[in-house]
């Protein structure tokens, strides 16, 4: 029996959700919706008495102060002749409803049993003269996503039984795939039909392996191989062979790009603070005598393109589990999130088929990050959001987590005969094929064929897991841990048992519902699960830890010494693979890579005298403008350790350079987190993009008072299809830049990740994202009270520019205002830059610096304007005093320096520094030998005034105006 309870605000109570939807409808350009009312719907199944359902409603579901309710009282979608439209949105069968478990618990507390299931749904009542088409737009664009939800046509349907998920009829019988007799065409077909994303060469290799065994693979074996060999899990491009040709010179062979560049830099630098690099779920460095910290950044691009909330939500959940699965488990202490979207004002009619509008993607992604990060109680302290049309089919969603762990818990080793224990949520059909799916390109059809890979997370489940795992860790109850991420159990168990062998009874895996095949159980990517390797004599104690806090933990098998992966299901051996073949058996394809330096038009914008309008436009540029609307939705203070937040200034709303947290409340030590990302530089040369990103990430660490000591980097490459030589050429070029810059700065990489195939195909035309590299940096700070913030502190203080400004306007935001790319991309001179960084770091530690801001997007002008309006103070500055640098390689004839170039050039390794007059001499003594200029001072008047090279005023504006230009675009 089903009961449907509708809960809505009492008359006179402000319906905040309804009002929000009404505003969103207006944003769609539909002006005729007069009002929107929101109701929450609960569908309760069970053999209940009416008085019991009344009690559930009154004592649990309804807030008697602000809400009313009704039971089994439906409205039809639309009554002719009225202007009232009713839309019910419910989850699709099989989609996890995160609220169900909590509500079941709440009902149990009322001592009411016999409830079989609880589902939630949403009801929207829209008043207004709307056409069917408008209603369809509102529903599709705002109210539901067909991948996880549907519109309930007739609400009475809630009362009938819906069969949740179609079951497999022959769930017990073992299926095999006929590879032995398959032709090449057939092999390709098998890969495509099974969504295996395996190449012909790989399929042949598999066939060859089974020929040796004289049998065909089971479906489960083939899936396991596909998961393990996927780009997502194995990084075949980075680990493979590449024939690379640069600017038509003789091709060179690169054997394992990762080892040849990123890992090589780390090895050669051999830094004492690195503890565990490129081997665990996250990289680990030293923190203090007793603790280490780990850092990992993941991407979750493909799922976020299809279901932004769920994609970002599970992206955050996944990277937190990475951290929890590092060593013997680290406690997450902060998150960082970086996104790239298409412009939020992208014309609706230009939207390619099958894509969601970027504004909706952005709102969904932000909500997904907010939901998971806040509920886990992890402060989100750092991030960036950038925009470009080429992200229309593939937004980028980077999620990172920093964790802290006791030094002696930094390594793991599963042992023979350890029990394999699955901890966390039950397994369902969600996320089937996530790993392989993300290894292919998206098409306008992806939303139909890959809907199984879309899911939503349950952060409270993960919080419970976190709490209990740390407890079990400190009791030394297990030998190894890893998370169930892409590929599900197949990856987690396969990876952990790599050197041993593993035996798993698939029917022991707790399921959300019946009907899953053994293969689905094995590869499901259901969220919130971890795998532990537990000594048999500690099993009972371990299970008790989880039981005491209502976390499911189930032994599902054990590690062996057979070097084989053996899976059983209802008495049948459904998978029997050699670990060696599984992990080392994939062919190493040779890929071609070509890089040719592009030649862009070099038509600089007209040099005008008054550059104030240009500055305002730059401040309002989507990449530069205030992201306060986003940042405030993240809890950036939970755990109580935030020292430098993402927003700072007299009104707590200026843009911080990097974040500082104190992961241990009783210790003065801090952790600095920063990021460098600028895909625009890659339009000219991915090598300089990579070097600039590293410079930017490190520069931000210096700007907040850190140093280059105890710093580590992460790389995250998001690229197009690596089978296309030009895409791969850019990737190689960027990796080379990473090596040179990391070496030059003396800063090692400790972990990384790549997400390739970010292309979107519609009508046979493929659109790739701009090759985008995110560099994340982490640093240990001896004393967090040495933090420096970016906003101006006191009138009369002196302002310095440190670092040379060159005429490097290529791919700058200033050029972008005129739609120009140009060619003079900013370079990095690590030797010089390192000197600047070290000198400034010394000045900060001597407490000579009152404020410091790095010059990045929009150059000196934007940096100074931000410092001024964040500090609520004015500034006067003279461009004549800005130290200029020569651009080394340029074919153009030398020009006289221009005001706009000095103001807006995005040359690297530069800072603006505020210094008290009393410290002038000492500061300048520190700066000896590096380019710096005393170029202005902080003023009492709330004006920014900049005098050009000719001594004439070129920028003059009130700081309130400038702040408004910066805040207006994203004030949603």
């Amino acid at each position, binding site marked *: 029996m089903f009961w449907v309870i509708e809960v809505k605000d009492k008359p006179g*109570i*402000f319906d*905040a*959700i309804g*009002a*929000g939807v009404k505003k969103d409808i207006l944003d769609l350009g539909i002006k005729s919706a007069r009002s929107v009312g929101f109701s929450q719907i609960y569908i309760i199944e069970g053999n209940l008495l009416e008085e019991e359902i009344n009690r559930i409603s009154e*004592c*649990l579901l309804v*807030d*008697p*102060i*602000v809400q009313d309710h009704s039971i089994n009282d439906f409205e039809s979608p639309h009554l002719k002749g009225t202007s009232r439209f009713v839309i019910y949105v419910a989850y699709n069968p099989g989609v996890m409803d*995160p*609220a169900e478990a*909590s*509500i079941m*618990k*709440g009902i149990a*507390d*009322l*001592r009411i049993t016999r409830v079989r299931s609880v589902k939630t749904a949403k009801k929207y009542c829209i008043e207004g003269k709307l056409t069917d088409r408008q209603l369809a737009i509102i529903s599709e664009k705002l109210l539901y996503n067909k991948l996880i939800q549907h519109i309930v046509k007739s609400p009475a349907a809630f009362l009938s039984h819906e069969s949740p998920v179609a079951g497999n009829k022959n769930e017990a019988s073992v299926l095999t795939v006929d590879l032995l007799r398959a032709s090449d065409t057939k092999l390709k077909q098998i890969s495509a039909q099974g969504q295996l994303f395996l190449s012909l060469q790989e399929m042949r290799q598999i066939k060859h392996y089974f020929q040796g065994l004289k049998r065909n693979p089971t479906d489960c074996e083939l899936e396991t191989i596909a998961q393990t060999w996927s780009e997502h899990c194995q990084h075949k491009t980075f680990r493979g062979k590449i024939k690379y040709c640069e600017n038509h010179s003789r091709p060179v062979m690169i054997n394992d790009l990762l080892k040849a560049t990123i890992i090589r830099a780390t090895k050669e630098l051999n830094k004492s603070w690195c503890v565990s690099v490129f081997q665990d779920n996250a990289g680990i460095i030293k923190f203090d005598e007793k603790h280490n910290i780990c850092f990992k950044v993941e991407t979750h691009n493909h799922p976020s393109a299809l279901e932004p909330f769920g994609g970002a939500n599970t992206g955050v959940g996944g990277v937190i589990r990475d951290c929890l699965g590092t060593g013997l488990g680290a406690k997450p202490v902060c998150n960082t999130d970086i996104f790239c979207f298409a412009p939020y004002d992208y014309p609706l009619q230009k939207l390619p088929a099958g894509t969601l509008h970027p504004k909706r993607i952005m709102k969904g992604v932000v909500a997904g990050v*907010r939901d998971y990060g*806040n*509920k*886990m*109680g992890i402060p989100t302290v750092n991030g960036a959001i950038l925009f470009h049309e080429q992200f229309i089919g593939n937004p980028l969603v980077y999620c990172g987590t920093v964790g802290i762990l006791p030094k002696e818990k930094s390594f793991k080793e599963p042992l023979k005969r350890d029990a394999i224990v699955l901890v966390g949520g039950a397994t369902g059909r969600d996320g089937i094929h996530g790993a392989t799916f993300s290894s292919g390109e998206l098409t306008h059809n992806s939303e139909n064929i890959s809907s199984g890979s879309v899911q939503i997370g*349950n*952060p*409270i489940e993960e*919080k*419970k897991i976190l*709490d209990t795992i740390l407890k079990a860790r400190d009791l030394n109850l297990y030998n190894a841990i890893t998370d169930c991420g892409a590929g599900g159990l197949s990856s987690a168990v396969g990876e952990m048992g790599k050197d041993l062998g593993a035996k798993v009874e698939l029917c022991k895996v707790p399921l959300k519902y019946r009907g899953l095949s053994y293969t689905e159980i094995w590869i499901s990517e259901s969220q919130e699960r971890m795998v532990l390797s537990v000594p048999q004599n500690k099993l009972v104690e371990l299970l008790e830890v989880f039981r*005491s*806090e*209502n976390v499911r933990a189930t032994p599902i098998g054990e590690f062996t010494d057979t070097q084989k992966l053996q899976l059983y299901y209802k008495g049948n051996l459904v998978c029997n693979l050699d670990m060696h073949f599984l992990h080392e058996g994939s062919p190493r394809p040779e890929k071609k890579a070509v890089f040719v330096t592009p030649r862009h038009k070099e038509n600089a914008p007209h040099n005008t005298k008054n550059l104030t309008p240009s500055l305002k436009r730059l401040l309002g540029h989507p990449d530069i403008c205030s992201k306060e609307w986003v940042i*405030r*939705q*993240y*809890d*950036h*203070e*939970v*755990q*109580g*350790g*935030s*020292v430098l*937040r993402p*927003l*700072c*200034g*007299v009104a*707590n709303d200026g843009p911080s350079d990097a974040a500082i947290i*104190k992961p241990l*409340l009783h210790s003065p030590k801090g952790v600095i987190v920063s990021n460098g990302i600028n895909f625009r530089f890659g339009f000219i040369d991915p090598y300089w993009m990579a070097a600039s990103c590293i410079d930017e990430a490190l520069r931000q660490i210096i700007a907040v008072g850190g140093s280059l000591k105890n710093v580590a980097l992460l790389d995250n490459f998001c690229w197009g299809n690596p089978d296309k030589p030009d895409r791969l050429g850019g990737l190689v070029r960027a990796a080379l830049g990473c090596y040179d810059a990391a070496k030059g700065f003396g800063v090692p990489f400790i972990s990384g990740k790549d997400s390739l195939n970010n292309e979107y195909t519609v009508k046979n035309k493929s659109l790739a994202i701009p090759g985008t590299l995110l560099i994340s940096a982490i640093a240990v700070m001896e004393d*967090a*009270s*040495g*933090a420096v913030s970016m906003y101006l502190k006191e009138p009369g203080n002196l302002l310095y520019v440190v670092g040379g400004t060159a005429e490097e306007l290529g791919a700058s935001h200033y050029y972008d205002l005129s739609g120009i790319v140009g060619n003079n991309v900013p370079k990095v001179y690590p030797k010089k830059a390192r000197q600047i960084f070290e000198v400034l770091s010394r000045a900060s530690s001597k*407490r000579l610096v009152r404020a410091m801001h790095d010059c990045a997007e929009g150059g000196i002008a934007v940096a100074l304007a931000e410092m001024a309006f964040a500090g609520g103070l004015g500034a006067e500055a003279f461009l004549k005093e800005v130290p200029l640098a020569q651009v080394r390689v340029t074919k153009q004839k030398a020009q006289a320096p221009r005001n706009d170039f000095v103001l807006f050039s995005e040359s690297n390794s530069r800072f603006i520094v505020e210094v008290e007059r009393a410290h002038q001499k000492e500061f300048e003594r520190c700066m000896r030998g590096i380019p710096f200029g005393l170029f202005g001072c902080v003023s009492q008047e709330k004006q920014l005034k900049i005098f050009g090279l000719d001594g004439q005023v070129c920028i003059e504006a009130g700081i309130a105006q400038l702040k408004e230009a910066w805040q207006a675009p994203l004030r949603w």
Partner: protein
Amino acid sequence: MQKPKVCVLRTAGTNCDQETAFAFFKAGAFAELVHTNSLVSGYKALDEYQILAIPGGFTYGDDVAAGKILANELKYELKAALLDFIGEGKLIIGICNGFQMLVKSGLLPGNAELAQEASLTINDSAKFEDRWVYLKCIATGRQKAKCVWTKGLPEIIYLPVAHGEGKFVVRDKAVLARLKRNNQIVVEYCDEKGSPASYPHNPNGSTEGIAGICDETGRVFGLMPHPERHIHVLQHPRWVRSHKRLEGVGLAIFKNAVVYVQKKF
């Protein structure tokens, strides 16, 4: 003098438990993290403690409504123990999600039947927001102070809020009148000068800017802002670098509780 024992209650989704325990520790108390299951099963007993703290977080995912499921759990499983605890003159604080729980369980503003008379509902902005707010402490003077937690606090204090459901509303005018008459309103959102102000100073649209209330005894206190996030000067968003170590204004709230318990028990 013996250190007061604090039960920092945690359950699925609690996430400010460690910093709350740390604040009590700094204030001179002994704080223990206790899972609700331990209290319900009888493994731990509430009467071992003199202070109960219900910290911030998203207990049970804020599903149904923030704090509601925890409120029911405590009300149906631990009602007698809680009423005894209050009856013995002990202290309770609920911060953010803990405040939501206290209000939804009827412990605040408080009446004999534990009937709910007020609520904390969705912010007018319809979104979660993290920001620092100024709070006016009402009636903190030694004489007329009702709430033992805020005695002697400065007139205006600065603390962060971080919530999506913090709009304080009352059942009817009579409840509001009673709150005022009994001096049960403890902190109100205000501007930097202490005057009542609208959004963003009042971050959620609370009735009359009410940010925290106490019960009639003054010993049960709930508030949306987070005092445990401002116990050290470095936690202030605009801390000016100085060599002097200063404590944050939030610490005084925890110290008040410690002093009270030490005097009384």
